[in-house]
C-alpha cells in the first residue's frame, strides 16, 4: 500500500534506532508524551518500543477521545437510545465502553437500538431510510473528527432532514495539553504532536509549548517510521538545545491547517464553557457543542438527558494513566478486575487506550518476547 509500506521499512527503523541511541546523553532518561490515540495504537501494534533505547520512554497522554468520556455521558447516550423510536449510531469503539449501568452492548441486549457506523454520513443514510425513527449520531473525537460531524450537520440542514441529531462529545486538544503542562506530577522532555488533529488545526497552536514551556514538539505521522523519525527529531532538538515546533508529517499536515474544516466547525458548533474529562476533571473551553443556529440537530436540546455525574470507581486510575503519570500495569486493577473483556475504565476498552494497547500488545517484558521470537 502506497504511502504506508514505505514508512514501515525495518531497515530504516534500525538505522533510526541507532541514531536515536547515539543522541542519548549518558545517565539521562528521556520522556516524550504523545497525545493521540492513533499513536498509542501504532506504537504498540508495531512493537516500536523495541526500537528505542531503555532510557527513552514514550508516555501516553489524554489523546484517546473515547477514553476521556466520563461514565455519566455514556449513561446519557443510553438514556437517549432508550427513548421511543430512537436509533442511536456510534463508532465501533464506543460499543463496549462501560457507563454507570453497562455498555451499549448491554443496552442493546436490553432492547435499545444502538448501531455501529463507520462515518457520520452512514448515520445520515439511516435517518433518510428510516423517516419514522429519530436517528442520533454520537459524535466523539478531537478536532480531527469534528469537521466531519459539522459537514454532516450541514448536509442534514441542506436536505431538510427532521429526524437526525448529534449528541456531541467532541473535545479539543490544546486545553488537554495545557492541563498536562500545568500538572506538577509530570516531567516531560517533549511532545509527539497529534498528526491528524494537526491536519485540521495546523501546527501553530502548539507554538506556545516551545515558547512558554521551552519544550519541543514534533508533529508525527502514524506509520512506525514516522514515529521513530519524530523521536529522532526531538532528540536532535534536545541535543542542540532547541525547543521548536517541527512538522515530520509534512506530506499530510499543512502548517496552517485546513481552513475549510475550521470554517465548518465554526459554522455549526461552539465551545462549551467547560466539559468534564474523565480523569482530568472539568476543563474550560475544551469541548464543542452544536450552536444555536443548528440547535434542531442538537440531541441535547431534543431529548431529555439526565446529565447525572457518575463517579469513577475508586480503584480506577484512568486519570493518572491518561496523564501519563502511571504506566498501565501500575494501576491497581490492571489485568485483574479490569481487562479488555471486563473493563472498568475507558483506557482498557478503546483500542487506542494505553491500557488496552499495553494489555493486548505490549504485555510481555521485552526480553522474554525477544527470546521467544528470535528467528
Amino acid at each position: 500500500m502506497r504511502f504506508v509500506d514505505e514508512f514501515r521499512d525495518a531497515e530504516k527503523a534500525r538505522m533510526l534506532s541507532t541514531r536515536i541511541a547515539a543522541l542519548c546523553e549518558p545517565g539521562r532518561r528521556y520522556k516524550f508524551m504523545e497525545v493521540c490515540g492513533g499513536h498509542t495504537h501504532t506504537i504498540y501494534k508495531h512493537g516500536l518500543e523495541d526500537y528505542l533505547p531503555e532510557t527513552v520512554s514514550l508516555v501516553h497522554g489524554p489523546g484517546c477521545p473515547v477514553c476521556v468520556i466520563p461514565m455519566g455521558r455514556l449513561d446519557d447516550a443510553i438514556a437517549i437510545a432508550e427513548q421511543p423510536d430512537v436509533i442511536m449510531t456510534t463508532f465501533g469503539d464506543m460499543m463496549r465502553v462501560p457507563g454507570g449501568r453497562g455498555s451499549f452492548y448491554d443496552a442493546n441486549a436490553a432492547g435499545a437500538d444502538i448501531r455501529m457506523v463507520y462515518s457520520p454520513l452512514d448515520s445520515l443514510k439511516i435517518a433518510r431510510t428510516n423517516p419514522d425513527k429519530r436517528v442520533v449520531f454520537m459524535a466523539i473525537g478531537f478536532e480531527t473528527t469534528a469537521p466531519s460531524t459539522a459537514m454532516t450537520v450541514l448536509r442534514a440542514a441542506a436536505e431538510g432532514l427532521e429526524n437526525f441529531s448529534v449528541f456531541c462529545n467532541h473535545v479539543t486538544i490544546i486545553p488537554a495539553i495545557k492541563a498536562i503542562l500545568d500538572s506538577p506530577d509530570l516531567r516531560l522532555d517533549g511532545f509527539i504532536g497529534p498528526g491528524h488533529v494537526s491536519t485540521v488545526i495546523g501546527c501553530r497552536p502548539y507554538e506556545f509549548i516551545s515558547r512558554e514551556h521551552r519544550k519541543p514538539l514534533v508533529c508525527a505521522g502514524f506509520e512506525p517510521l514516522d514515529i521513530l523519525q519524530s523521536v529522532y527529531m526531538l532528540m536532535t532538538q534536545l541535543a542542540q538545545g532547541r525547543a521548536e515546533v517541527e512538522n515530520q508529517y509534512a506530506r499530510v499536515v499543512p502548517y496552517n491547517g485546513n481552513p475549510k474544516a475550521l470554517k465548518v466547525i465554526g459554522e455549526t458548533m461552539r465551545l462549551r464553557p467547560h466539559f468534564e474529562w474523565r480523569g482530568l476533571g472539568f476543563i474550560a473551553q475544551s469541548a464543542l457543542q452544536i450552536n444555536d443556529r443548528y440547535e434542531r440537530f442538537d440531541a441535547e436540546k431534543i431529548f431529555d438527558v439526565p446529565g447525572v455525574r457518575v463517579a469513577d470507581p475508586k480503584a480506577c486510575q484512568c486519570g493518572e494513566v491518561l496523564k501519563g503519570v502511571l504506566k498501565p500495569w501500575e494501576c491497581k486493577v490492571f489485568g485483574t478486575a479490569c481487562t479488555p473483556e471486563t473493563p472498568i475504565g475507558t483506557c482498557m476498552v478503546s483500542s487506542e487506550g494505553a491500557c488496552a494497547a499495553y494489555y493486548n500488545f505490549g504485555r510481555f517484558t521485552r526480553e522474554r518476547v525477544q527470546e521467544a521470537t528470535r528467528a
Partner: protein
Amino acid sequence: MCLGIPGEIVEIMADREDFAMVSVAGVKRAVNIGLLTEDDEQLKAGDWILIHVGFALAKIDEREAEEAIRMLEGMGQAYTDELIALAQSDLAGER
C-alpha cells in the same frame, strides 16, 4: 477507532456533489471531499488523499512524501557509510 488511510482518487463523481470514488489497495469507497474544496487547486483523479470516517481530511503532498523517504534513505546511506568507515578504521587501528 477512526484511522486515517491514504487513498487514490479514481474519479470525481459527477452525479454526487462533493464526492469522489477513492481506491485503497483496489477497494473502492465513495468519500466526501467537501473539506478540500476551497483550495485553489481542484482535486482530480490520481490525487492522493487521507481518508477519515468517510471524509477526505487532507491532500497528500507526494513531493513531501518522496522528500521524507529520500531523507530517510539519505540517512540510511550516510549511516551505512559511517558503519563502513568505522569498520575500516577499526581494522586500521588493530594492525
